[in-house]
């Protein structure tokens, strides 16, 4: 966080409500995102308790595991989740546009143009918080290696048919969420925190309810008051007024409400098993339904506030105009989605448990590149972000005071005009440092030449002025123009091509063991009731 962001937080303290950190929206928001609010069982990894999921804020689908320790019920939950998520995903795989791409033949090295498919839009998944993103990864990891009866008739506990596929998609989304600036899987808290500064710390900002109390308060209520109630307020039974946005539940809820309801459910199930005649069985079944309904009601009571909060957050974000370069990043997300669609269609195995050396290095390089690009694009799209870079000396805005035409001294002279720029900013410039401005969406470079006595900067314009001796119309700034220059490049360079995994060098352990598909996870009998 920079000083300018700290200042915004302090202004929020004083004002009692959040202050803008951005003037445009820096993340893509789909017209029809899929919101997922998951809950999990305390103390046990991969034992979901329930979820609200759907694309319509008014019509969430409630999924509940009435006894989270029962593997059959867990599988039923995952199967239902797959039936919600996969049709939404599949709905984006058909509509495509054809894009020309360069292709290099791996054998001959010859280059050619080929047409490839790019999905016209991609599914977007929104969860309440970062912990929700982590949970999506965990769900993906826990399901993608499961075997269905069709894959392996001998598997002792076959998973429902579409569950492994759900795991692969969730894994892909969880992994893509690590790429800076990507929007396939987003947390509502991250979205809000990117665009507003509250009067509390970034740790407290992870609480969705508290965050909204600062950004979208009820009436004139000061943010700190609303946030405090969201964090700690309890009703007369000791239950939180604003339940956590998951996946963890509040221990008081577990101990006072959920545990007795699950016990009642267990007893009702036993009663069904023990029923000796039809009449008793019918009564017992009715009891079981009642008990299940009660668990569902309780789980829903915890999920619904977070569900509403996520949609409220999305509504707030939609009020901001989208940044100019957001669509460019979303196109990358669409490529990512399309590529995964193709991998699944090609019958490739699920993502391995851990990346091999080459994949890990390639991912790191791609993310560093994405980070550089995101930083640059946000600054170019948003004067408020640029202000932070100006403060830190990485950019400056100034008025062109003078333009002096000059040329290279080659046989065919090329224009190299000298600009004198007046600025109050204090960029970290040394002789020869390159600076860039955006000219019709493309970067135009200049180099720093000298600082005048009055503090003005002399820059030499270097490119994008056409091939002729005289610069093309509109490519050289005019006197009096106010221009933002950055010391950082607008596009980050693509890193070197890494070796293929089968050519992993000896320094990195040589080629990874052949990926003959990973074994499913071990099964423990005590998970089955």
């Amino acid at each position: 966080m920079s000083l300018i962001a700290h200042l915004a937080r302090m202004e929020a303290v004083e004002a009692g409500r959040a202050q803008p950190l951005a003037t445009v929206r820096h993340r893509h928001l789909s017209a029809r995102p899929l919101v997922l609010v998951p809950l999990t069982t305390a103390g046990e990894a991969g034992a979901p308790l329930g979820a609200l999921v759907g694309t319509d804020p008014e019509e969430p689908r409630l999924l509940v595991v009435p006894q989270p320790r029962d593997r059959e019920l867990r599988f039923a939950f995952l199967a239902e989740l797959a039936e919600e998520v996969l049709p939404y995903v599949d709905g984006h795989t058909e509509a495509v546009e054809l894009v020309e791409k360069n292709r290099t033949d791996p054998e001959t090295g010859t280059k050619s143009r080929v047409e490839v498919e790019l999905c016209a839009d991609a599914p977007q998944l929104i969860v309440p918080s970062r912990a929700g993103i982590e949970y999506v990864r965990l769900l993906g990891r826990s399901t993608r290696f499961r075997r269905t009866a069709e894959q392996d008739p001998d598997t002792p506990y076959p998973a429902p048919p579409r569950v492994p596929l759900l795991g692969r998609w969730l894994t892909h989304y969880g992994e893509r969420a690590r790429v800076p600036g990507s929007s396939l899987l987003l947390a509502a808290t991250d979205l809000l925190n990117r665009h507003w500064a509250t009067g509390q710390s970034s740790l407290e900002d992870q609480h969705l309810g508290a965050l909204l109390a600062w950004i979208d308060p009820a009436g004139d209520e000061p943010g700190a008051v609303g946030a405090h109630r969201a964090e700690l307020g309890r009703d007369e039974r000791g239950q939180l007024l604003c339940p956590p946005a998951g996946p963890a539940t509040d221990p008081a809820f577990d101990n006072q409400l959920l545990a007795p309801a699950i016990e009642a459910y267990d007893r009702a199930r036993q009663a069904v098993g023990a029923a000796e005649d039809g009449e008793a069985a019918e009564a017992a079944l009715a009891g079981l339904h009642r008990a299940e309904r009660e668990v569902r009601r309780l789980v829903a009571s915890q999920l619904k506030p977070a569900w509403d909060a996520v949609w409220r957050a999305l509504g707030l974000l939609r009020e901001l105009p989208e940044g100019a370069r957001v669509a460019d990043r979303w196109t990358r997300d669409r490529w990512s989605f399309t590529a995964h669609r193709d991998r699944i269609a090609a019958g490739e195995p699920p993502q391995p448990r851990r990346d091999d050396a080459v994949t890990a290095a390639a991912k790191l390089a791609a993310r560093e590149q994405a980070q550089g690009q995101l930083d640059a694009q946000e600054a170019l799209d948003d004067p408020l972000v640029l202000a932070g870079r100006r403060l830190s000396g990485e950019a400056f805005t100034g008025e062109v005071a003078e333009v002096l035409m000059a040329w290279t001294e080659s046989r065919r002279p090329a224009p190299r005009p000298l600009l004198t720029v007046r600025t109050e900013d204090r960029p970290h410039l040394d002789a020869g440092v390159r600076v860039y401005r955006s000219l019709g969406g493309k970067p135009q470079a200049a180099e720093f030449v000298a600082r005048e006595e009055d503090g003005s900067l002399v820059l030499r314009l270097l490119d994008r002025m056409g091939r002729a001796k005289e610069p093309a119309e509109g490519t050289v700034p005019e006197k009096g123009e106010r221009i933002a220059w950055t010391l950082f490049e607008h596009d980050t360079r693509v890193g070197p091509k890494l070796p293929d995994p089968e050519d992993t060098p000896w320094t990195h352990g040589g080629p990874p063991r052949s990926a003959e598909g990973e074994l499913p996870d071990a099964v423990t009998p005590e998970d089955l009731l």
Partner: protein
Amino acid sequence: MTVYDPTVPDPAAAAAKATAAILESTLHGTARGVVVDSPPGAGKSTLVVRAALELAAAGRPLMVVAQTNAQVDDLVLRLAEKQPDLEVGRLHSSDGDPYDKALDALEHVRKSAKAGDLSGLPVVVSTAAKWAHVKNVEPWAHAIVDEAYQMRSDALLAVAGLFERALFVGDPGQLDPFSVVGADQWAGLSYDPSASAVSTLLAHNPELPQHRLPVSWRLPASAAPLVSDAFYPYTPFRAGTGPGDRRLAFGAPSDGSAADRVLDEAAESGWGLLELPARHTPRTDPEAVHAVALVVRRLLDRGGAAISERSDAPVPLTADRIAVGTAHRDQAAAVREALAGLGVSGVTVDTANRLQGREYDVTVVLHPLSGRPDATAFHLETGRLCVLASRHRHACVVVCRAGVADLLDEHPSTEPVRLGVTVKFPDGWEANHAVLSHLAEHRVPWTP
């Protein structure tokens, strides 16, 4: 494995023995890799040049991988100086001004942006970043990887296919490589792409011979034990010179000011701590910046002269033999401005990152924790302090606000722990305390 060898009391002999063992492993050993740890000023560059010349003489096509263009150019110049008729290739980027113009004066140095133009030369030198783009060439028989501890594992992955065998040389005590994005998901993997090249190399090839240069020729006898204990607890080294071999004398006597007294203390003992009153300040603490500049000014005004094994006569301490080290760029900028205000020019002022590998007679250091209300991982990083405390041949003056010891004691220690990641020692906290408690013995309170 070279170990600290007390049976060789003469440092020159100990160093020669270590170098001979390294060259033996490199030229005649069977292992694909040889790793050499080199503490500050232990003759790493000399070793690299010598190994390069011997490999070239043995007819083994050699590629040299360095981390920055400045390091590459420096190496080419050194090779040409040692053996002017050796054909050296300088592979460079296709950006404007890609290499030091001084190379143009060297007759046998060929420069190109294409590896193909340089094929067949006995030695080709470039940066890791440039090498990574070289494809479809016959692998080199041998490589030397310089500053290997500052190279990231993924950078090594991109170039390791270019050579059969390699000598890896570097200083494990300096700043670790870093990544601008999170890399936690690979923590604990032997090939974590964000780890150092050497840690990946050794995780996969633990049997590789590891050597160590045991003598620092740069650090004086007053500094080597402290730096060795604080930053290299498991791989101690010693100074190549003895107490009294290096001295600092001034033409003009002390005027009694704090700056002069701390200079006298540093001239006498090798260390000086100029302590300003405790206060929380922004990074560019004007008082501390001024104190740094004033110390430098007085150092020049008093006609300092360095007496060392390098020369029979005292050598005047000129601006180019002095450096100021800071943690942050804006601090360096503020010090530069303050020096200009005092009419001082020609003194190097830079951050720890940029001072890595450099050497001066006297350094003046603005302590990374001076005036801070809190310590962060950045400011506690062991390598940062190690770089700042190990650039000098004669003396180091540290300028710092009081209260850093308390700041360290109140620093929360709730670091996350990642399974399978080797714990790095020494801890920044411990190293900072070790240096501070040593400096406390050379303390001069600041009086404006």
